């Protein structure tokens, strides 16, 4: 498996699909919500990312439906996509825990100096 760190939009996109299939607009709004408005996926970027992730076997089409005359295609995480997201979560947690430990030590050292 490719263990390179995921870019933030990719990570958020996979996260948006982690608890169930979503259609394109649903993913866009969910990414916006998860990132507290910091990351706004545009339609072109979203579909280019979905195309790449599908080619890597991390996401796949789930089902289609027509709403108000518009086609909606739902996407879901594949098992390798879930594994990839889990690896990334573990990596981020590990790094975050290390950073938190070091910061705590730094604060103690600074408190000791005062």
């Amino acid at each position, binding site marked *: 498996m*490719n263990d390179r760190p995921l870019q933030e939009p990719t990570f958020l996109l996979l996260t948006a699909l982690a608890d169930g299939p979503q*259609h*394109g*607009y649903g993913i*866009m709004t969910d990414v916006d919500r998860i990132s507290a408005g910091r990351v706004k996926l*545009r*339609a*072109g*970027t*979203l*579909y*280019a990312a*979905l*195309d*790449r*992730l*599908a*080619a*890597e*076997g991390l*996401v*796949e*089409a789930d089902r289609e439906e027509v*709403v108000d005359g*518009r*086609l*909606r*295609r739902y*996407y879901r995480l594949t098992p390798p996509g879930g594994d990839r997201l889990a690896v990334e979560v573990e990596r981020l947690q590990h790094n975050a825990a290390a950073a938190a430990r070091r910061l705590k030590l730094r604060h103690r050292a600074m408190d000791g100096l005062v």
Partner: protein
Amino acid sequence: MTATGDLEGGYRRLLRWYPTSYRGRHEEEILGVLMAAAQPGQRRPAMRESLDLLWSALKIRVRTILRGADSQPWAAALAFVAVLLPLLMLLLKLTIFLDRGAQYGFGTPADILIGAYGEPGSYAQSFQANPYSVALTGNVTDALTAGPLPALILAVLACLGRRRAAAIFAAFVPLAYLGITLGNGYTLLGAPRTAVTLYAYGLEALILFAAPGAARGWRALRWRPSALLAIATVAAGVGMNGGLWRIFHVPPAFPANVLGRAARLRRLANLPHGFIDRLFGVGAGQWGGWLLYQGLLVAIIVIALVALLVGSPVSRRALSLFAVPFALGAIIYLCSLISPPLPASVGNTLVVVPLLLMLLAAMVVSLGHGRNAGPDVPGRPATPGAA
């Protein structure tokens, strides 16, 4: 028209920049997302949205091309050409080398390696006389494009399946040549054989980066008997026209009527002298003899090649790839005929741009999927929704 109609029309125009096959699967879906995300009353696509769509369309187009290279016929053709092209280049350089050696002498092994000819040790003598000009210009550039050593190194690397090393070397040779020639104020226009060599190296670098199947090395050539026959045919043609015929052929004494015909043929053939005669090393005015001695052979080769290579999708693709350096060389040669002659800088730019584009494409391909490609990737999963 309503605001919604205007906006939808604007988005559809932007979506036309996507590949047709991708649009067929995703246009309505993306349009739905774009319309859902639009502001109330919005009449035309916003600038950032438009740029995002155009940039994404470009990315999808590049990926579509790369995936096309992974499809079965292209993968086979690329793997085939990636190994065969260096072998043919080596053959061509060896025949030119033998031809020149027969005319001017083979010199010492050191002379032979760098493609220098003449009396034994002539390279060393000229190096002593003028180290800078000999070492850094004439002989080195000659060795890079005309000498057999670079082609030999490339052929060995390609045959061993050292794909990445071969690709880097294939990119290095033309870049080194350009660095030396342009740095010394040489003119590149009007030397089609050199241009074809440079483009062949550039194409080889691109193919090696694009074709994971090339990692199979010489085994890639085993895939069908017709390929082996095609190799033999092309090799015979290149070998003979590269100069072997001059070594083996002794011109017969002609009867008077044949001589007259030869003279007429020569006059006729002098008219188009240019790209092909320069490419294959036939000097101006020798076309009559060339036609007499080689015409039949070339006709047989051409017919055999067409019959062999057009026979399957793989062969057609392989043939079209082989044609790329020659077609580019022909264009460059035609540019050299423009009157009044183009300024040297314009001519050099014309020669350099296709090569740099090939090397740039090789770099993009390498960064695009080279990292993920294994030694033999059979194909990639379909795009979203295709499943």
